[in-house]
């Protein structure tokens, strides 16, 4: 848990309340702050576009709708993202295959590793550009 991690605000998109609770708990234990929490695609799209956050954690399936349009917005804002899902990567929309993800159920360690991977992707991108 670094000082810089403490400052990162996270946008959470997760339709299952109990899973959201678990995620929130893990994130706060890892030292992140919750910037917003969406449980449906409409809220997620709006928050992704408007909220002030430095990392997004997205469930892939929101009541039968995929969250990839949300991910597009996050990516366009050049904000790092992590998928948290029960799907395997091969079921991801092609443009997001290989994106940092954690397989549900996940440990705090796995979540932390995926977040680190997403943040380092971002760091790499800024070096490249």
């Amino acid at each position: 848990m670094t000082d810089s991690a403490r400052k990162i605000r996270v946008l959470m998109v997760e339709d299952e309340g109990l899973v959201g609770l678990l995620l929130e708990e893990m994130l706060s234990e890892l030292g992140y702050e919750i910037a917003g929490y969406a449980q449906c695609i409409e809220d997620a799209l709006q928050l992704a576009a408007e909220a002030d956050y430095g990392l997004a954690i997205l469930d892939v399936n929101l009541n039968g709708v995929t969250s990839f349009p949300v991910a597009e917005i996050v990516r366009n804002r050049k904000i790092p993202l992590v998928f948290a899902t029960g799907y395997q990567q091969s079921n991801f929309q092609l443009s997001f295959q290989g994106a940092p993800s954690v397989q549900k159920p996940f440990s705090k360690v796995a979540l932390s590793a995926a977040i680190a991977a997403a943040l380092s992707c971002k760091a790499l991108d800024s070096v490249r550009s």
Partner: protein
Amino acid sequence: MNVESARLLVVDDIAEARYAKVRALQKAGWSVSETSGGEETLAFVASRPTDLVVLDTMLPDILGTEVCREIKRKRPDIMVLQTSATFIGADAKVTALDAGADAYLVEPAEAPVLVATVRALLRAKSAEDQLRVANERLLARTLELEALLSSAPIGLAFFDKAGRCTRINNEFAGISALSAKGHIGRTIKELFPNSASSLENSLGEIFSTGASLQNLELSEGFNAGDQHWLAGFFPVRDASNDITTAGCWAVDISERKRAEQHKETLINELDHRVKNTLTIVQSLASQTFRGAGVDEAKVEAFENRLCALSAAHDVLTRGSWRTADLREIVVKAAQLHGAADRFSIEGPDLKLRPKAALALAMGLHELCTNALKYGALSSSEGQVNVCWSLERENGAPRLSLIWKETGGPLVGRPAHRGFGSKLLERSLASDLKGTISLDFSPDGVTCAISAPIDFE
């Protein structure tokens, strides 16, 4: 017809001449009938089996050449040897032959000449008969094959060396928008653009090696929706054993493919739901036990077991819940603990049944956890070697897997047997129906698992 058993008819209105010819032919061994007029002759050949007619030209009712013409019109298979007296000129001979006679003999002929001429004609007839029978058989076979080609529920086509279609049945032609006829002369590239390269390679192989090729999968998308075909190639050889054509069969497996895709979607969906439910269970456990006086480490151990179970599900889902790859199970267990680089893994490719795979995954998880806490993975030097082999015991295959830790701190036998070792020793042994021995030797934990293995 046999030359020896041929049935002959001698036609002559002059009794003496007729008698001489009948005698000569009978002496040569043939069965011979006789008639003296044209009408009588035509009635005879219409009703009695006859192979050859020795036909005199000068008959009282109808001219011999006319009788010949009539016989040949109705029964072209009957041989006619036209005979006539010496005083008849050359043009009569021509007329007789043109009327259909197979040969012409001037009388009086020496008996041996008559016999030899009849034998020669019968030989020709016999050859002709054989050819006709062979042709009829060939035609029947061809018609059978044609019927097979047009009504078989599989696609059949033939291609020449240049890859041009020489024949194709309707079933096969149904892949494309072209009619069966429209395929003829077109190349594989024109007809099946998506599969052209694999088809052309197969074709080349047929012509160069002559070996049949089975079960190539082809996909084309001419009509609505993709079509998938299972195809095979086989060589067609001519009488001198040269490959002249490549035959190709193809079975439409589009339905099967769609069913497979559907099944895969269902399995993925189910998998997703199971994962979600496990995550809810994880959350429930976390909410229930954290801060309720339960040891934080216990909650974490529970979460980790849940994750190990879920990871094993992943491997099983990839194997459609029929089999799981042993190596994948081992690698996944190592990865889950962030220690993949500390493992050396060796063993042949092996598929495990779901129950055995789950038991083994959970067992490996406990071993990993233990190694991280107290064993080889608790120090920076330690290594874990997992190796397995397939052995036979009374002919039945057995998996023998050894987990061996090295380079870790000194190992002491645990004072307390926790759930981890219970899970290992009991559940793993009973779910795998095998034996398990845990050895806490000071230089590193060794776990040997031996279990019967059944294949699909």
